[in-house]
């Protein structure tokens, strides 16, 4: 078996500071692959724990392809129960952390317990040490990463937001990459871990199972990348980062504006890719081994598309400098930008206010402040709106704030928001690929026809992507067909596309089952009422009517049948029995 596929888990108990390495049963690792799959496996062992229970695990897991020559496959997944949504939650993170874990011959780090003081953990090959953290609660994350840099390797850390109890606190990796959604930073802080540093020196790339087949898969994937206008074209993600999507979403009249009251923002050209290039002259950089190089930096970090759109259009703000500043505050304090921007937009609508420019920056800064409003802002839009007597103003699903694709402009996206196992997330199925970008082929964005199965298959596919450590952007060009060949070449496991999809189906269905155990049912698979009653903003040749609730429910019911759910959205008993038997051939 090639070294690309391992199943060594480092268990850390923060209460006792005991650690041990364990090689997991190969049946488990072959059934869950790595990354998100392994996270889901561990969460499923005790599905009823609350997010901040010391016994609830925080899991860092590499993908099966991490360290291989297969392009764009160095992602790490961080998993835990979300304090924001109470669902299972896994976040894909770039940076060098996954590779350093592999170099330390660790595939998974599983952390439970709670330290009695703020602690840094250092892992170097097979040695592990714990140190008291020297920083104040308010120390900016950039300072923490700077202080850690002499240690070498890669670091994950939490900031002030986590220590102030922000429900959408993020974990930052290598100062630039965020595990943003769902508040996993709060989980890390609840264990009193301020930073986790890994450095290894093993040569993990030395022995793929079949080097020739690995090279063939790599070549096929690179050729597809080069042929992809979305990735490598003049205006693709390589050239502009994800800000390349700003103009596209504006042109399709599906850019959430004014807390989703509208779907078009006149001022979006102020934070488009060309505007950023002109104002900031950024350079691009990448996760290790990724030719797409989607990240952009000038003197300061350039925000991602979601952040640009939400600190921009969602708050009716056309001031680029304030958007960049707001993003910087989130990065320095460790907050999810989507939830922060959306919670502020929600507050603005309830109060009849508008926070733009410096006022927006101040409002973001105020999240770390004192007083009842700051407390509410840290709880996210669902709690804030409920507490202020306007629950309908929270634009979230399962309390996770929706990202920057208005569901009235892409019906697959509407369904995918509802069925996502971590709440209102675009990445679990990413139907934008076919509804807007036309990959692999274009589908009718204003129709639910066929979307139930499309979403289900995409959820399964993206679960595999997250479990092998690949980047979802790669799948705007390549497909599981090419990555399955890479997987087999690296690991020596003769899994093909459908084997992987079956595993993806099982992991996703297990996530849904865990959520059911935690009390989630059909009533939670609903979009905010606004989307069924209020139209978006039309334009030349484009109408954005409200979603037809009957059609939405009909699609949801079809989805349930296809996913193996009962009519109430829980997983059927017959399906539960097979969840751990992932290879059914």
């Amino acid at each position, binding site marked *: 078996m090639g070294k690309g596929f391992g199943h060594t888990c480092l268990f850390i108990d923060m209460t006792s500071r005991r650690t041990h390495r364990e090689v997991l049963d190969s049946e488990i690792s072959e059934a869950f692959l790595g990354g998100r799959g392994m996270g889901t496996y561990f969460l499923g062992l005790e599905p009823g724990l609350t997010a901040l229970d010391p016994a609830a695990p925080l899991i860092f897991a590499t993908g099966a392809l991490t360290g291989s020559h297969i392009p764009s496959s160095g992602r790490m997944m961080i998993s835990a129960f979300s304090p924001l949504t109470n669902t299972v939650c896994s976040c894909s993170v770039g940076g060098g952390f996954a590779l350093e874990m592999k170099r330390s011959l660790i595939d998974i780090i599983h952390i439970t317990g709670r330290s009695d003081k703020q602690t840094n953990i250092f892992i170097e090959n097979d040695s592990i040490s714990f140190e008291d953290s020297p920083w104040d609660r308010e120390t900016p994350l950039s300072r923490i990463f700077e202080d850690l840099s002499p240690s070498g390797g890669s670091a994950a850390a939490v900031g002030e937001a986590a220590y102030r109890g922000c429900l959408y606190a993020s974990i930052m990796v290598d100062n630039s990459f965020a595990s943003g959604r769902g508040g996993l930073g709060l989980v890390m802080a609840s264990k009193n871990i301020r930073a986790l540093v890994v450095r290894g020196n093993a040569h993990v790339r030395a022995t793929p199972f079949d080097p020739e087949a690995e090279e063939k898969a790599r070549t096929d994937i690179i*050729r597809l990348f*080069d*042929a992809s*206008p979305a990735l490598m074209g003049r205006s693709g993600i390589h050239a502009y980062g994800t*800000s390349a999507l700003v103009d596209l979403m504006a042109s399709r009249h599906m850019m959430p504006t004014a807390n989703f009251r509208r779907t078009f923002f006149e001022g979006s050209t102020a934070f488009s890719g060309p505007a950023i290039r002109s104002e900031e002259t950024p350079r691009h950089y990448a996760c290790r081994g990724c030719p797409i190089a989607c990240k952009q930096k000038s003197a300061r970090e350039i925000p991602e598309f979601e952040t640009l759109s939400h600190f921009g259009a969602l708050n009716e703000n056309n001031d680029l400098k304030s958007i960049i500043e707001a993003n910087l505050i989130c990065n320095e304090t460790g907050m999810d930008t989507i939830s922060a921007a959306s919670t502020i937009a929600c507050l603005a609508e309830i109060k009849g206010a508008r926070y733009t420019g410096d006022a927006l920056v101040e409002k973001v800064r105020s999240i770390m402040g004192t007083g009842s409003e700051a407390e509410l802002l840290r709880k996210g839009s669902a709690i804030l709106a409920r507490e202020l007597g306007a629950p309908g103003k929270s634009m979230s699903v399962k309390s996770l704030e929706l990202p920057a694709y208005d569901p009235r402009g892409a019906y697959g996206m509407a369904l995918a928001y509802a069925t996502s196992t971590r709440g209102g997330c675009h990445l679990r199925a990413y139907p934008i690929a076919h509804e807007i970008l*036309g*990959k*692999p082929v*274009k589908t009718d964005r204003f129709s639910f*026809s066929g979307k139930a199965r499309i979403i289900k298959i995409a959820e399964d596919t993206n679960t595999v992507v997250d479990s092998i450590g690949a980047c979802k952007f790669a799948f705007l060009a390549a497909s599981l067909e090419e990555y399955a060949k890479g997987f087999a070449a690296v690991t020596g496991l003769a899994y093909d596309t459908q084997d992987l999809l079956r595993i993806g189906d099982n992991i996703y269905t297990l996530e849904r089952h865990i959520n059911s155990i935690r009390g989630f049912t059909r009533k939670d698979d609903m979009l905010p009422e606004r989307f069924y009653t209020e139209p978006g903003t039309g334009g030349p040749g484009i109408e954005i009517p409200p979603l037809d609730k009957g059609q939405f429910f009909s699609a949801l019911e079809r989805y349930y049948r296809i996913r193996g759910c009962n009519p109430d959205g829980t997983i059927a008993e017959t399906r539960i029995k097979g969840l751990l038997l992932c290879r059914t051939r």
Partner: protein
Amino acid sequence: MQNQVNKYLGKLINHGLVEGPGDAELYGLDDEIYSNRDQVPEKVRAVFDALNINSLLIALPEPVRWSIISELLRGNPDVISPTDSESLTFIHDIPVIGSFDPGAIACALNRRKGCIVKDRGIVSFGTVSLEQAFVVMSSICFATFVKYFTDIINGLHGFRGMPRPTSLQIDTCQEFLTRITPYKPSSPLSPIPPADEAGIIKAMDAAGKAMVHAHLVDSFFGNISLRLGDVIYISQTGSSLDELPGRIDRVPLDGSSTCEITSSSELSAHVKIYELSNDRAILHGHPRFSVIMSMFGEPFKFGETRHIGGIPVVAGEVGAGRKGLVHTLPQAMLKDHAAIVHGHGVFVGSAHTFHEAYEKVSSIETGCFELYKEALKSGA
């Protein structure tokens, strides 16, 4: 889903890929299976049970295409490896299986997007829509056609290590040529340049339909554009040239918008051609004999230029990568406003309208067809 079934059945027939409605079975699955057949055979249900897909196409190609595929199957290959660059990029290779056994079909479709079933035709699938299955079926027809004629002519002249065809194989090839026309003429395009956006979309719609109708693009892979002032209008990536309205991007040349992220993979090449020339319209198609003749001879090196019938042939891969055709094609088009990209297709520019460009693509294809016949004769 039923709409998709009906639409792609119509397209299979209109594109000349199958002879009639009885030659294609189309299945679309959401929570139930939709089809052009009254009943869904158990074997088809078994394929759906085995695969996480939402559409399946089983089609017997029209007789000439199927005869050509059958010739390629004579050596009982397990897999057919295409020679043209687009097929290599997007479908890689084509598994071959003996009969419609659900297990064998599932195994083949686990590996690739489509396969050839010796006693049935081509089987392909989609995970998003029947359009994927249609595109793959069309691509397999194109890839096998190009491979057959390329291998014969190279073998005949001792190129690329191909075995010399037997006299029976040469006779068969000649017989195929009598049943093939290089392109199917369509009604002429307007020679009047469009003056506004509405006119441009109308002109692009007509030109795209003409290219498909004439079989100058065999699948979804061509692209076309038109320049008006400082704006280029170009077909989107993956768009079918006979369904362009709604799939045309407006690209300002000053780079003020990134909406072109959905544009054709060859946008960079189109832009460069416009920058270097006074062209106003560009057509890019995959006329089969132009592609075949571009591969006549020993393999081509990047940066090398050859000529076929006076038209330059250059190497270059799809897109704007290090060896992308954007680095070779635009220069090659300077003299004659036309060039062939090795193993890929024809690009033609016009300083006026699509009318002129379309005529030129057609004449290049006719010329290459004649050159092929001559090469076959001289080699024999």
